[in-house]
Structures are given as structure tokens and as C-alpha cells.
């Protein structure tokens, strides 16, 4: 049984992390000068990033319990509490959120010229919402952050996006909202079934009936599957990515779509273990379809951003494949892959942003031969491409390897088909790199192309560093999550009521 370790530090670290960006956005309301707005927004995001230091330094890897807990009564009539806490899974995403938000502000420095203040306010609000989603341990509070995030993201896409932004913004909003509201009914049902509580840790200990689990799992599943996005709920993603400004794409790919997978880990698996096992074959199949379909679609794209969007569908297929393999290897691989994808896809969108700001085109055919003009950029893109492919030595390799291992233990055909996805991934990414960086310059505009400037290098550097750190020493992330993931596997295992055969398999696997 998980506990919430309350007030370990003498200051409310997690609340600070939620409210510092909010404070920043309020402050920005009174700043008129665009240059000042940028610096203040950056300062707040850096402070936020700095708060990761006490978070990670004081984090205890050895325990699966929720740490840095805070709990206040919020709406006593409904037994709703403001409960926060992080474990080995969420702490990683809190850190990634602060990093990617800082990078997003840096890449928007010159790209955003229109309504800078509103842009930065939206970004900081979004950051508060994202942190809130990862640290909430009350279902109601979680839902508040989960939905509140839609507002700034809708505005980021709709106001600062590309030509077809209106369509993309509405599609993004409606898809996510429809999924979420069904989860809301599910949350209410859980509240009554678990004895009038929204407390996540208490609900984890409650055993729901099998029928109840099947229905409510489905309600939660829709919300998370749209967010991931899993095939066939993915169609909003390419539109949203293509139209979003660079910062929006980075956060969308880096953090927002991870929340779906995080939802599976935090809620679906521990709350509804029976339903999870019953649904697993279907979800594994959808994951494999997503891997192949996303890769296949990526081959056909002529738009740089759209190609990455489809590659995200494929990569997130790996994540769900790993999670629903329901063994230690798969789960840890899935979580690692979530981090890796956040890093490498964030970096890829950064790369798109850099070149788009110079050429104002995203069509792959308009590039070509730019390695000669922008060698630093070409090197950066190469590293990220290789990381996205999963070359050994880069971060992508470890995650995918562990996922395949987990999937193999679950069922061999899934692992075999999924590994085809890796080959396809290598194909479309290398082909993409070849078309962009090599060959001769066909587009005369690219003759005057300038290389990455120091601000862009500074934004890209942490991501490149992480590619190698996690590639060469994955334990840096694995040891943080290990206790929590092991506990999760055990939790699912212990609560399974109706499928003894599967439970047995699980225990033999985790015993390994």
C-alpha cells in the first residue's frame, strides 16, 4: 500500500512548482515591452527549472511511496482535497516539463513577434497545468489540471499557428474534450464506488467489481487513448502539430501526449487491473498497428512537421506496447521511451522551428544540401535523427530494446511485428535526413541560409546532452523509476481477481 509522505521539506515544493508559473503570467499582465516580457518569462521558467534541483536531490529512489506530499482540504462537501505528491514515475516528467518549457520560451524568442505577452502568459499557464497533472493525487484536482491545459494549448495553436490553424485548434480541443468528459463520468463513478473519495492512493487500494472495471476502464481509456494518441484516435495529432507554433509542438509532443500514457500508468493499471488484463490483447494490437501505420504514413509525408507527427504516433505505439506488456521490462522501457520521445521529438520540432524561421517552408522538397550551409544544424539534426531511430549509444535504443523485451515476454508475434517498426523508423528518418542535409542545394533561397545562432544552440544543447546521457547511462532514469514501477507491477498483480493464469504469468515474470 502506497503512502503519502507529507511535508518532507520545510517549503511546499510542488505547490511552488505549480504556482510560480501562474505568478509569472500574472506579472506579465503588467509588462508592455515585448523584450521585457521575454526575459521575465524566461526568468520564471528558469526558476522553475531550478526547482528541479531540490526535487531531484531530495528524491528517495529506494521507495515507491509518494514523496513531497502536500494535502489540504479544498471542497470538504465532496471530500475533495488538494493533494500533491510525486513518485519515481511522475518526478521524471515534472523535470522534463520544466526543461521543455524553458526551451520552448527560448525557441520562441524571435519566432513570435505578434502578441508576445499573451503568448508567454499562455506558455506559463500551460506549464502550471502540466506540472499539476503530474503531481495531483486527487482525481478531481487531476481533472481540473487536465482540462485547464486545453485552454492555453488551444490558444497557442489557434492564435500563433500556421495557415490552417483554426481547423487544427478546434479539432484538437474537441477530440480531447470528448475523451475527457467521458473520463469525468468515470471519475464520478469511481468516487461513489470507492466510498465517496477522490483520493488516488485510497482508490488504488479499493477492489472494484469486474463489470464496473470493464466500463470505467473504457471511459478512462478513451480519454488517455485520444491524448496518447493511439490508433485510431490519432487524427488530431498531425493537424495540431503541423499548425502549432514551434513551442506548441515541442510541448505537445514532449509533454502533452505523454499524459495519456501517464494516465494509464497512474490510474488505469492500478485502479482496474482485471479490466486492464482483459483489454490488453486489444490494446497491444492497437499499439502494433500504430507502430506500423505511423511509420508507413511517415514515409509518405512531404511536410517535415507532419512526418515527425506520424513518427510520434509510431513511437507512442511502442510506449503503449511496453506499458501493456505489464511486466517490469515493458513498463520501464515504456516510461523510458516516454522520456526519450519527449527529448528527441522535442528536439526534432526545435530543428523544424529553426529551419522554418529561416526558410518559411516546411516542405522537405524545399530543403536539400543544407549541411554545406549550416553544418552545426546538420550535426544537431543528425544526432537527433539517430536518437529517434534508436541507434545504440543514444537514448532511443535502450527504451525500445526494453519494450521489445517486455513485449517478447508477453507474446512473441507482437515483438516481432513491432521490431519491423524500428526498421521502418530507420528508413523514413534516414531518408528524411538525406533529403534535408545532403545533396546539392536545389532551392536558391537556401544559398543564404545561416547556421544556428548561439541562442538556438543553447536551447538545443540540453537535449543533445540528454540524448547521450540516457543513451550511455540509462540507469540515471531507470533507478529513479525502478521502485515505483516494481510496486506498480506488484499492485496490478496483487489486485487481480479473475484471471489467475495471467496473474501467475505476471508473478513468474516479475520474479525474474
Amino acid at each position, binding site marked *: 500500500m502506497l503512502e503519502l509522505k507529507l511535508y518532507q521539506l520545510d517549503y511546499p515544493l510542488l505547490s511552488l512548482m505549480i504556482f510560480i508559473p501562474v505568478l509569472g503570467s500574472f506579472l506579465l499582465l503588467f509588462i508592455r515591452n515585448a523584450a521585457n516580457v521575454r526575459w521575465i518569462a524566461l526568468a520564471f521558467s528558469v526558476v522553475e527549472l531550478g526547482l528541479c534541483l531540490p526535487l531531484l536531490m531530495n528524491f528517495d529512489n529506494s521507495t515507491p511511496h509518494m514523496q513531497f506530499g502536500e494535502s489540504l482540504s*479544498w*471542497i470538504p462537501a465532496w471530500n475533495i482535497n488538494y493533494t500533491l505528491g510525486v513518485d519515481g514515475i511522475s518526478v521524471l516528467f515534472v523535470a522534463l516539463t520544466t526543461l521543455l518549457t524553458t526551451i520552448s520560451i527560448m525557441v520562441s524568442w524571435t519566432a513570435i513577434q505578434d502578441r508576445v505577452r499573451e503568448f508567454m502568459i499562455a506558455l506559463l499557464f500551460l506549464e502550471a497545468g502540466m506540472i499539476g497533472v503530474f503531481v495531483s493525487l486527487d482525481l478531481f484536482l487531476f481533472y481540473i489540471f487536465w482540462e485547464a491545459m486545453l*485552454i492555453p494549448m488551444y*490558444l497557442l495553436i489557434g492564435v500563433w499557428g500556421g495557415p490552417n490553424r*483554426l481547423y487544427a*485548434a478546434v479539432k484538437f480541443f474537441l477530440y480531447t*474534450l470528448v475523451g475527457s468528459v*467521458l473520463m469525468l463520468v468515470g471519475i464520478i463513478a469511481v468516487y461513489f464506488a470507492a466510498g465517496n473519495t477522490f483520493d488516488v492512493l485510497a482508490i488504488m487500494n479499493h477492489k472494484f467489481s469486474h463489470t464496473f472495471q470493464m466500463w470505467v476502464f473504457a471511459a478512462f481509456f478513451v480519454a488517455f487513448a485520444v491524448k496518447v494518441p493511439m490508433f485510431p484516435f490519432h487524427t488530431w495529432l498531425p493537424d495540431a502539430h503541423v499548425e502549432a507554433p514551434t513551442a506548441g509542438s515541442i510541448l505537445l509532443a514532449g509533454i502533452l501526449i505523454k499524459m495519456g500514457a501517464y494516465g494509464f500508468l497512474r490510474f488505469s493499471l492500478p485502479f482496474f487491473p482485471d479490466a486492464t488484463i482483459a483489454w490488453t490483447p486489444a490494446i497491444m494490437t492497437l499499439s502494433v498497428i500504430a507502430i506500423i501505420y505511423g511509420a508507413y504514413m511517415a514515409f509518405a509525408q512531404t511536410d517535415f512537421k507532419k512526418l515527425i507527427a506520424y513518427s510520434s504516433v509510431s513511437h507512442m505505439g511502442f510506449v503503449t506496447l511496453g506499458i501493456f506488456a505489464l511486466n517490469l521490462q515493458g513498463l520501464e522501457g515504456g516510461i523510458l521511451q516516454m522520456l526519450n520521445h519527449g527529448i528527441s521529438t522535442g528536439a526534432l520540432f526545435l530543428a523544424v522551428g529553426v529551419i522554418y524561421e529561416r526558410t518559411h517552408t516546411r516542405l522537405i522538397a524545399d530543403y536539400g544540401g543544407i549541411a554545406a550551409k549550416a553544418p552545426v544544424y546538420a550535426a544537431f539534426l543528425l544526432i537527433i535523427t539517430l536518437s529517434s531511430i534508436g541507434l545504440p549509444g543514444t537514448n532511443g535504443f535502450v527504451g525500445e530494446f526494453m519494450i521489445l523485451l517486455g513485449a517478447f515476454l508477453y507474446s512473441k508475434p507482437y515483438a516481432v511485428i513491432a521490431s519491423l517498426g524500428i526498421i521502418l523508423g530507420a528508413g523514413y528518418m534516414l531518408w528524411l535526413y538525406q533529403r534535408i542535409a545532403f545533396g546539392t542545394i536545389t532551392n536558391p533561397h537556401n544559398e543564404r541560409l545561416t547556421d544556428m545562432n548561439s541562442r538556438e544552440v543553447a536551447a538545443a544543447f540540453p537535449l543533445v546532452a540528454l540524448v547521450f546521457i540516457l543513451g550511455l547511462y540509462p540507469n540515471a532514469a531507470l533507478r529513479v523509476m525502478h521502485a515505483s514501477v516494481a510496486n506498480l507491477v506488484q499492485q496490478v498483480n496483487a489486485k487481480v481477481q479473475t484471471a489467475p493464469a495471467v496473474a501467475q504469468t505476471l508473478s513468474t515474470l516479475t520474479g525474474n
Partner: protein
Amino acid sequence: MFSMYQQFLQTILPILPEVIMITVALTVLIFDFFLEKDRKNVLGWYSLAGVIIAAYASYNLMSMSGTFFEGTFLLDPFSVFFKFVFYVACGLGILVSINYLKHEDIHRGEYYALMLFATTGMMMMASAGDLITLYLGLELMALSSYVLAGFMRSDNRSNEAAIKYLVLGAFSSGIMLYGMSLLYGLSGTTKLSGILAFLRGADLANPVIFLALIMLIVSFGFKVAAAPFHQWAPDVYEGAPTPVAAFMSAGPKVAGFAVLLRIFLYALEPLREHSSALLAGLAFLTMAVGNIMALSQTNIKRMLAYSSIAHAGYALVGLAAGGSEGAASVMLYVGIYALMNMGAFGVVIMLRKAGERGEEIADFAGLGKTNKTVAFLMLIFMFSLTGIPPLAGFVGKFYIFKSAVEAGLVWLAVAGVLFSAISAYFYLRVIMVMYMHEPKAEFKLLQSPSLALALAISVTAVIVIGVYPTALLNFARASITGIL
């Protein structure tokens, strides 16, 4: 002599707020004669002061509760809660009207008097312990609203709105009276408590009882604009002066729900089984019609009219759920709804183009660039109406759906959340037009301190209730004692 005077005071004390409202309304009519045309806004502030004093009186009467005037007038926490909602609706209604009336050159004292009369009618409805009092309150409210809807005499649409509202309103009042007379014929009393006592001992299979139930549902369906009895609402909202539409969507509608709660959860409580099923069906249909019809509207007032139909549908979900939680959820919901809807209408009132009223959604184009504050307020109201946290609209909807799930109406809760997801489309369109379209020429806002004050109050309430609903929630939950 002195003791008689004291006795008189004692007698009218329970209705002191109503007496204050009526007195202010009558004096407004008198003062109107002595005021120059361009100084009529004094009457607005005077009426507002009256509303605040009445609210203060109600506040002081909160400790007093009981039945008065032979059981025809109930002073209970339930009625007090609704009276506060009416004060807010009336107060905000006055604030948004002051400059608008001047601008449209219809600034006459009767306007404020009618508004106060209508509010008094609503207060009587909430306090009615008897079908006759209830009907009197309802007609006082309705007759005042008919005149208010047609207040812009030179405008054909306003006249049309008034006539349409009058004819359909009278029609529904007739049906209501028919239903009430059936109940009286059966039970021999017009007292709600008497009807409850009669029904507890009656043979509920009696088709006449069922007929009375249907008639009451139909007539109140008209009053709160529930589908399929909603057709009047869009035309009336569109034609009526915008502040009147704002007031009507908040005040009379909420009053309708006060009566619905009192009748269906208290007086006709033994018929719960039938009424719940009928109300659930009505709720589903109302949400469907309101949300789906709103999708295709290009006129912001018509859009808000259909949106208010949809919101009546959500409130009906709570009514169908019934019980103490259902009742409290409806009360919380209508209170929040009144605030956010007044806010949204307040922004519409501001909208002018080339001296004319701007009523098309397209008229909002580029507001996010030309007037950031007003656009941001509208953004807050639209997201709150959609029900996106952390705004008040979400809290209201959450409570409604929570009580529906608790009452076993899961299908209705699922339908409700899906319809509210659909509603995001038309609310978002307003935001999209404001922020994502380029401004058009000839765009001017009608700005005034009173309007700014009204918007500031509603936006603050929408955000504060959204983030910290406990105070209002506890007030609503403590106020249901009167009907259960």
C-alpha cells in the same frame, strides 16, 4: 396604538424584502416625472440601492424561518438562496442597462420599475407555499417581462418579441392553471403542504393526477424554455433589448427552477417515479436541442438563447436526479449560470458597429487585438459556459452530473457530458472569431462604468467560485432544507 404598530411590523417582517422592492419600484415611477431625460440614470442607481437594501433585509431574515400568512408564504433557507440569486440577476441587469438605454434613447423610469416588479414576482415564486401565491408571483414576473421585451417600441423585432412572449406565455399560464385546478379539485387545497399530504394517502394510479403532473411539467417547461416548449426563446431573446434578454435568461429562468424544485421535489414528491422519468426525458431533449441548434447560429443573441436552453437542460438533469444532492446541484448550477450568462450578455451589450448594435458573431472579429480586456472577459465567460475548469461553469456541471450518477441516471450524465463537449464548438467559435480573425473596420465598444462594474463582478465570481466553490456550495447545500 404603539403595540398595533409593532404588531403590523411583526406581520410584514417576513415580506420586508418584497415590500422594499415594491416601494422602490413605485417611487421610481414617481421620481421619473421630476427627472430630466438625460438624468434618468439616477433612477438606475436608486433601483440598485433598493435591491441592495432588500438583499440586506433578506440577509438579516436568514435566521428567521417559518410559514406566514396562513401558510401561503414560506420563509425558508431555500427561498432565501433563490432570492439572493434574483438580487444578483436584477442588480447586474440594472447595471448593464443604464448606459444601453441612454444610447438607444429608451431611457425611461418604467424600465427599472418593471425590472423591480419582475424581481419581486420571482421572489414571491420562491417563497410561495400555495399555488395561488405562486401563480401571482409568476404572473407579476411574466407581465413585467412581456413589457420589458417590447420596451424598444420603435423596433419591430422588439414588438414581435413582446407579442410572441405574451401569447405563448399566456398559453402556458393557462395550461398551468388547468393543472393546478386539477390538483385543487383532487386535494381540496391549494397549499403545497396540503397537496403533499393528499398525495401521500392518494391512489397514485389515478389518471387525473398524472394529467395534472403532465400539465405542470409542460407549463413550467415553457417558462424555463425546455425543449420541445422552447421555440419562443430565441425569437424573444433576439428581439428584446439585450439587457432585457440578459435579465430574462438569468432571472425568470432561475425563478422557474425554484418553483420546479419546490413543486416536483416537495409537493409532488410522492410522484417522483413518474416525474423523474419525464424530467429525465425532458432534460435529454432540452440538452440535445439547445446544443445542436446553437451550432448553426450566426447571431450571438440567438446563440446565447439556444445556449440558455441547453443550460436549462443541464439543470433539469439535476432535477431528474432529485433528492437532496439533486436539489442542491440545481441550486448551485442556476446560481452560477446566472452569473456567467449575465457576464456574456454584458459583453454583447458593449458591442457596437457604426453606431448600430453589433449582434452577429462575426462582429466580434479581432476583438482580441482591438480590446484585449473585453475579449479576455468574453473568453472567460465562454470557457465557463463550456464547463472548462477552473471556472465556475465546470463546478456547476460537475455537481449536476455527480448527482445524476448518484441517482443512477448514468446514461443521462453521459449524454450531458457529450452534449457539453458539443457545446464547446459554438462557444469556441466566439473565441476563435475574437482572437484568430483580423479586426474589421468600424468597431467601437459601448463602455461605461456601470457596465464595467457588472462585468467585473461577474468575472470575479466566475473565477473565484471556480477555484474555491466551497462557500457557495455549502450555502446551496444548507439551503435545501426548505423542500425536503
